[in-house]
């Protein structure tokens, strides 16, 4: 789907320093154009949804119980370099995503 032209929308990104937040150099706030990171975001959500769908498909229904929905909530943080970090939803995350998988025929 083509994204209509409009005002510049930027999204905050984080630098991957590999130090796990222990080093206390300045955290320079960096941003990127949201439209430039469109593919990164879409790929991350699609991959997470696939993992969740496959997990739900493997769930064993037994003892007359049936699991109808599986829900996952996670944070999605864009790295300054490229790519996305999926993590526990937190203040650091750029987006908070909730995926709900509902079994067909439920």
């Amino acid at each position, binding site marked *: 789907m083509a994204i209509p032209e409009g005002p510049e929308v930027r999204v905050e990104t984080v630098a991957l320093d590999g130090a*796990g*937040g222990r080093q*206390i*150099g*300045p955290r320079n706030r960096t941003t990127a154009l949201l439209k430039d990171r469109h593919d990164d975001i879409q790929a991350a959500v699609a991959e997470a949804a696939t993992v969740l769908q496959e997990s739900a498909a493997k769930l064993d229904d037994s003892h007359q119980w049936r699991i109808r929905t599986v829900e996952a909530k996670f944070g999605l943080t864009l790295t300054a370099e490229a790519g996305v970090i999926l993590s526990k939803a937190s203040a*650091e995350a750029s987006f908070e995503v909730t995926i709900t998988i509902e079994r067909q025929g439920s």
Partner: protein
Amino acid sequence: MAGRSQYWVDIHQGGTPLGAGFFITARYVLTARHCLRRIRRDDDTLDLHCADGEVVAARLYQSGADADLALIETTKPKDWSIALPRPDLPRARDGWTDPYRPTASDPYLKGLIEHAPVPYLCADGTTVQALQLGCDQALGDYSGYSGSPVERLVEHSEEHCDSDDARLLGILLEQHLDRENPDRASGVLFAATIGEVLERFDYFGLAHFERILGLRLTPADPPPFASEPSSVVEPPSVVEPARSSLRAKIAEASALVDGLEDWVSRGLLDPDEVRVMASRIANSIVDAGIAEMTR
């Protein structure tokens, strides 16, 4: 601000703030190596924004290969009007303070030294002798304070001591993260001891001062420069009697330091204590040398 040490700097490259540092001698600034992570690969020139407002041009001089420390050299002498701190030895339960803060809306940090010295494994995989610092200001995130100096807190006052009296204990490097919530820092910080700094850079050894003064009593290899070093300043012309006198002083100091190191090897003296003493001896030699050459 009156009463606070003024020897710290904000390090910038091309308008981007990189972190804190501080003058450890009139020409060299110490910082945390990780502050310089984003320095351009093809350009090691830096701007040092000093506490008194002056901006001094500088370049990376030496990056500690096996410690999260780096030394920056000013390329032009600073218009010097601030007092340098004196290295000192930390003791557990002493008060500490940091005269630097990243912005005017950030608090100054202070607290108690919980353990010193303690071997500390840094995030970059290197190990340093460190101070474990309890911090009174619960910020949850101490980013921006790296590379700033840790001073002894003067007991009779909650304020920082005057620059003239500042006692330098270490350089701030890392925060400890809350184990239950790693997105937040606990109130524990780690700083490399000043003894560790003196050990890591041969700039602080007597051999370096011998080279600067043009008196080569002991052969020494040049330091592993991060880039081509700027030329070492040789005295324009040294009067021979002054050289003789200096030689005698350096020989005496070298013998003294050798003696102290012998005591360390026999377990009679603490190595950190000797490094601080050696640094003071070296500084007094330089002072004496400059005085004789300008006589």
